[in-house]
């Protein structure tokens, strides 16, 4: 049904290649509106050009007096657009209900937006910064945000939903083409809004489960320092702690192991394993001078083995 005007890559002139069950349906509505629009635009341009040429001002020729209104004609161009916009409304609405109503037995992934990355939590507790999904399985996302409003947008799937702090929103899709697709943040969220890009990776049948198992066991597979680096990214630590020496909301991680300094209450400290462990699990108890007590606790959110890996990673960040 969709007749692309010009082919661009796999997609059409207007749309990226459809990669979800919803996409062809949305594109059909788009195409219908496009044809209606082209028809009316051509009509307007044609009438305008015809009148300009036919009735161009000539010396000695005056405008011909015609009726100043015509009820029948005016009703016609009221009623025809009315019928057309009703059809467009109906198509848009039914298409939307399809986008808004997930089938039963969806695979559910929790999504958190934060400045400036997406975090995806799978049913087994694994956290990843890209969204991996199986092919031909309806997936339902439960979205929220940790700070400001973000918006989860996958152009290839034609889906978008805001991630709002303090509430949950939902979105579902079913991928029909294996491959990798962009996830953009579509609600302006500050400095790196345009770099808040994740990938959706659609795995062919059978491979998704394998990927999830592998990914979940990264602590066993990877060297502790590498696993720690991955955790630092997926748990959002780097949002406040730089690794290049710049002071941010929290102290920099660069050269942190072995650093000496003063707490707000005047006590002196030296950073070693137990200090880091306390700082992660009970961050409010010891605040480094010059910083605000804003870090949330990770008690219950990180396992001992994960904290050990993170400490190993911090040891590698030498000045």
């Amino acid at each position: 049904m969709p007749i692309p005007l010009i082919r661009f890559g796999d997609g059409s002139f207007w749309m990226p290649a459809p990669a979800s069950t919803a996409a062809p349906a949305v594109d059909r509505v788009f195409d219908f509106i496009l044809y209606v629009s082209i028809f009316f635009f051509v009509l307007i341009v044609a009438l305008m050009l015809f009148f300009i040429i036919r009735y161009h001002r000539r010396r000695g020729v005056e405008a011909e007096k015609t009726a100043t209104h015509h009820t029948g004609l005016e009703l016609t161009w009221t009623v025809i657009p009315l019928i057309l916009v009703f059809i467009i409304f109906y198509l848009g609405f039914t298409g939307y209900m399809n986008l808004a109503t997930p089938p039963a037995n969806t695979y559910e992934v929790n999504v958190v937006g934060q400045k400036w990355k997406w975090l995806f939590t799978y049913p087994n507790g694994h956290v990843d910064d890209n969204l991996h999904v199986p092919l031909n399985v309806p997936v339902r996302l439960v979205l929220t945000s940790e700070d400001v409003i973000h918006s989860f947008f996958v152009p290839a799937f034609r889906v978008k939903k805001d991630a709002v702090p303090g509430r949950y929103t939902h979105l579902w899709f079913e991928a029909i083409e294996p491959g990798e697709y962009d996830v953009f943040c579509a609600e302006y969220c500050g400095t790196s809004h345009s770099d808040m890009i994740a990938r959706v990776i659609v795995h062919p049948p059978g491979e998704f489960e394998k990927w999830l198992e592998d990914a979940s066991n990264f602590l066993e597979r990877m060297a502790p320092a590498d696993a720690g680096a991955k955790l630092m990214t997926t748990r959002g630590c780097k949002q406040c702690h730089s690794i290049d020496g710049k002071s941010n909301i929290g102290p920099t991680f660069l050269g942190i192991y072995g650093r000496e300094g003063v707490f707000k209450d005047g006590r002196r400290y030296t950073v070693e394993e137990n200090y880091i462990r306390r700082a992660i699990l009970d961050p409010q108890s010891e605040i480094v001078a010059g910083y605000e007590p804003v870090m949330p606790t990770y008690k219950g959110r990180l396992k001992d083995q994960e904290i050990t890996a993170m400490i190993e990673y911090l040891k590698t960040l030498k000045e």
Partner: protein
Amino acid sequence: MNGSTAVADNYLSHGRGFRSWFFTLDHKRIGVMYLASIFFFLILGGFFAMLIRTELLTPGRTIMDADTYNQVFTLHGAVMIFLFIIPGIPAAFGNFVLPVMLGAKDVAFPRLNLLSYHLYVVGAIFSVVSILLGAVDTGWTFYTPYSTTTHTSVVSMTLGAFILGFSSIFTGINFIVTIHRMRPPGMSWNRLPLFLWALYSTAIIQILATPVLGITLLLLIVERLLGIGIFDPALGGDPVLYQHFFWFYSHPAVYIMILPAMGVMSELISVFSRKHIFGYKAIAYSSVAIAVLSFLVWGHHMFTSGQSDLGNMIFSALTFSVAIPSAIKVFNWLATMYKGSIRLDTPMLYALSFLLLFGIGGLTGLFLGALATDVHLHDTYFVVAHFHYTMMGGVLIAFLGAMHYWWPKMFGRMYSEKAGRLAAFLVFVGFNLTFFSQFVMGSQGMPRRYYNYVDRFQSYHVLSTIGAYVLAIAFVVLAGNLIHSLFRGRKAPANPWGSATLEWMCASPPPHDNFAEPPEAGDPYDLEHLVYDESIGGYAPRTAREGA
């Protein structure tokens, strides 16, 4: 009678010096001051637009860093919306033309009118000061909780917008009272020029919707300064509530912008086709219909916000209802041209550009009003292109048309037709190059407010930037032509275009008091009784020429 006095004394020569302008009660001088201020901010907003387009020539950094870019696009939006488009046509041309069109000496409340201009200046100062204090980076929409947590000068900018709101309300009150109370003998509601019907409808929205923006911005300031939780979920507030409040004003505000532009269109199409406007009543009442419906569609900005499906359905349906009065107007304008005697003077070129560009702007609105397609297109460049086609292709183009139409009346000088047409042509070409490419990149998935972008969008961005430079050149030609005309232009006759509305019955420029006594108003679109008189280079009533 008016011929000799007009030469001796017109509103421009009536009093000299800064005080005679800045504290004047003359609606014409206030209109001219508004025009100068508004045009200044159009250029400033345009300058920010050029910075944006230059930065987007390449992905990643081209000329500025991400934080600067975020401030620049916010300033572009805020300056263009609050300081150019919203006051735009009503404050500059409405103020100048409305009383003369009514054959009156001034608006109903001249002091309130001056206060409205002074508030505009104060509001503008607050907005400009916010640039110096660390420009806002929230986007012109100030969405919470971003706007309540960012470290930039949100308070100064919102205070500026709050004050500008009052300026807008005062103008609205003045216009409504003036139109009700000061129509001349013979001008029934059905003989009110359509530009005034449009200003009247606009004024209704200004008075009813603007207070909501004021309250919303105050709540925002209260939350930022006092930490009272209204919108910020960390304080127990609701960020989506802010969006409801904001769009409850800002969607009607879209019609504050477009309705006066449509009013200008009705005048231009009729005059330059030398035809009575077709379907007067339908055009007049559709303005009022748009004003009323504009209050019921704000939720269409929030289809992906998590708003309920029922809410989305209702807002989508109501949104489509606005398409009908807009379509009626477009077809009535076309029908006006039928069997006319059409001249493509500069104002008419802008009117025809409006038909095409606003046509595209309106039709692409259908994609955004339909729920299924809006989910994909929301917050992409498709939306950016859509509102530039309506706001710039519609309002700005009509503003330029109005400027070229009333320029001889305002300053008593004719500009060069050749340069005027060239500028109009360049605006049309540059505009389409800039914004049509944005439709395509938007539906291909390019989100708006992006500093950086993935490589596959670059060719569209390059096209768009080239278009922006063409537009900049067009504006240099346009401004140069108009400024040149002030010094070297041929003296304008009272009625250069052959219009039948009353402002063309007094001299160009009008005397201080406009009319010695209220003129008799006839049908504002009865153009047949006016014929071209070569000895004065303009139009004069048929009987007068035969008598002479």
